[in-house]
């Protein structure tokens, strides 16, 4: 064998110097399915406080939005099975309280940066079911004329800055948007969503150090649904309490019950106030994804029981619904009416998207540049 090909090491694999064999990444966890559940205490009487703060209207709007998100994704899922939507489609079902709770705490001046599981964020920020569904269909009436797609939803007018598909990359953009808010001396914050699997990506650590050092108005939201594709948090993280990840950035960190929209709302509200004082926050929001990672994922890395218990015990919409009824904010009938309306709206968005024309062929070569002194090619 050629000289200098590390020859001295070639034959050493077989020999065992008496050290017992230990694997690298641990196997699928045997921990109870709820080992990553929110275990903290949400402030007592928080709901009442929020009710006082926002009023019944807004609470009902949160309920409506959460239902909209769920019905929308159910329709998207169906449309995917009918091959109306192709490619990767990442549904948000189960995580509705996170998007709705966050957005309720933001103002129009604030900004949002998200990843590829962003349909819920886009709708909660105020985008219409029609423009989002049409984008999923790749049609002309989509928010990006069908050129972006399911993973790349944008709405510049609402400061909704995507919709990005490279895991972790969005945090640097989010820090950049927060940087811009501070640079312009705007009274605004940027919320950036990350998954529990994204936290390990190097750029997340680079960005959070700068955000803390520079006092950027950035709120990092770990949408901790316990899995990165088929891999649960503890299989790829040296610590399972993700708030520990930012100790090295001296950043405010908190674990939040992501299935409780009141808890999410108030955590983000407080974070926004801190952010405007130049103190970024890191929220590890414990939630759960009911469906597979994407439409093609059978999700057999977790038990049917695990999913059922989540749905039965902690569903965020059921929890809010019950609270509303118990506190007589609205009647059964009123809530059913909202549900029916949302269902109708989302079904209508499918028809709208289906009937929307394909983007014009000329769109193929537009929007590559603002100004280009030559024809493309």
């Amino acid at each position, binding site marked *: 064998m050629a000289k*200098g090909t590390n020859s001295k090491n070639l034959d050493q*694999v077989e020999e065992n110097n008496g050290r017992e064999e230990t694997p690298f990444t641990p196997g699928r966890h045997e921990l109870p399915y709820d080992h990553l559940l929110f275990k903290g205490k949400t402030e007592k009487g928080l709901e009442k406080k929020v009710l006082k703060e926002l009023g019944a209207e807004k609470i009902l709007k949160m309920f409506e939005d959460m239902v909209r998100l769920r019905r929308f994704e159910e329709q998207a899922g169906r449309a995917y099975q009918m091959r109306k939507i192709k490619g990767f489609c990442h549904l948000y079902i189960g995580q509705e309280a996170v998007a709705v709770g966050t957005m309720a705490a933001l103002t129009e001046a604030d900004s949002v940066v998200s990843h590829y599981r962003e349909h819920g964020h886009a709708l909660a920020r105020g985008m219409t079911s029609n423009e989002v569904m049409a984008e999923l269909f790749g049609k002309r009436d989509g928010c990006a004329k069908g050129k972006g797609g399911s993973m790349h939803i944008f709405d510049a007018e609402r400061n909704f800055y995507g919709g990005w598909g490279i895991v972790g990359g969005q945090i640097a953009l989010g820090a950049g948007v927060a940087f811009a808010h501070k640079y312009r001396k705007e009274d605004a914050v940027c919320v950036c969503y990350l998954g529990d699997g994204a936290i390990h990506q190097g750029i997340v650590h680079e960005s959070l150090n700068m955000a803390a050092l520079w006092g950027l108005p950035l709120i990092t939201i770990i949408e901790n649904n316990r899995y990165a594709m088929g891999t649960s948090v503890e299989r790829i993280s040296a610590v399972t309490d993700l708030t520990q990840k930012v100790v090295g950035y001296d950043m405010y960190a908190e674990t939040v019950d992501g299935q409780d929209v009141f808890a999410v709302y108030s955590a983000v509200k407080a974070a926004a106030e801190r952010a405007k004082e130049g103190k970024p926050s890191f929220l590890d929001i414990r939630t759960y994804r009911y469906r597979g990672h994407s439409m093609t994922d059978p999700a057999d890395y977790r038990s049917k029981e695990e999913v059922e218990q989540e749905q039965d015990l902690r569903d965020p919409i059921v929890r809010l619904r019950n609270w509303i009824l118990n506190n007589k904010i609205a009647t059964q009938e009123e809530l059913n009416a909202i549900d029916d309306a949302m269902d109708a709206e989302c079904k209508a968005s499918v028809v709208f998207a289906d009937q929307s024309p394909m983007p014009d062929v000329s769109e193929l070569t537009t929007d590559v540049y603002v100004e280009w002194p030559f024809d493309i090619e």
Partner: protein
Amino acid sequence: MREIAYRDALNEALAEEMERDERVFLIGEEVAEYNGAYKVSRGLLDRFGARRVIDTPIVEAGFAGIGVGAAMTGLRPVVEMMTFNFAILALDMIVNHAAKMRYMSGGQLSCPIVVRGAGGAGGSLGAQHSQSLEAQYAHIPGLKVMMPATPYDAKGMLKAAIRDPDPVIFIESEVLYGFKGEVPEEEYIIELGQGDIKRSGADCTIVTWSRMVHFSLEAAEILAKEGIDVEVVDLRTIRPFDKDMIRESVKKTNRVVVVEEGWPMASVGSAISDFISRDLFDWLDAPVGRVHQRDVPMPYAYNLEPLSLPSAEGIAEAVRAACYRNK
């Protein structure tokens, strides 16, 4: 002969090489418990255990670097990139570390690593997930680059890549994983740097690789009906590419079209076309033709994506032009 899918041919190559050489291990996202995002590593965890089939966090630079470091000591890592769109995050480890290690150490070290995964457009995946980025690697001295088009080639080439003492970038075609073809039971190796004539013809040469081999063969069928007899050269390895096979074919046909899935500027296709124009200057009866993706990010809409990618008809048109023939 038995027919198996491209993904299973790759799986066999991995299993056989891991069986043969304990220095070989597989590392990447979802390669173990999940059996691979595209199921290329199906069954390997059960067979070889968690010491040799290793799930990683989502840190392309980090686990590629761990592969480079392990290879530096003589191990034979196979690093799976879920797709090469994400491998950009690891490019520094490949370009600045793996590719330069041997030269900077004056030949003391070598880096027998294979970085493999899916490349090209998968279909309605949008701009960030639909790129053919082989040019990023073909440009770099110290690297070798292979891109198989068939299950037969995939198996024989991956086995060669794993045995190669230098860093090999092995780009698979995302849309070909399910593609079936004949693969013998007996062991075989397809040496690095050897092209393959996938169809022989007399009138015009098409030089291509990976998924575009199939588009080109389709185009050849269309053209056969028009009386144009096309030779399809599948380079298989693009760095180094098989110059002699190209020379031989073009000296026979005097007309050539280079077809690639990716963008036109500073691409592998532009380099091969340039090589032909200069090296075979006196043998060409027409300018070299080129077919490539449109010079734009990949659109999501399913009416636009096919217009951005090369097509059999587009290739046929380029061949007609090279033959000064019109439909």
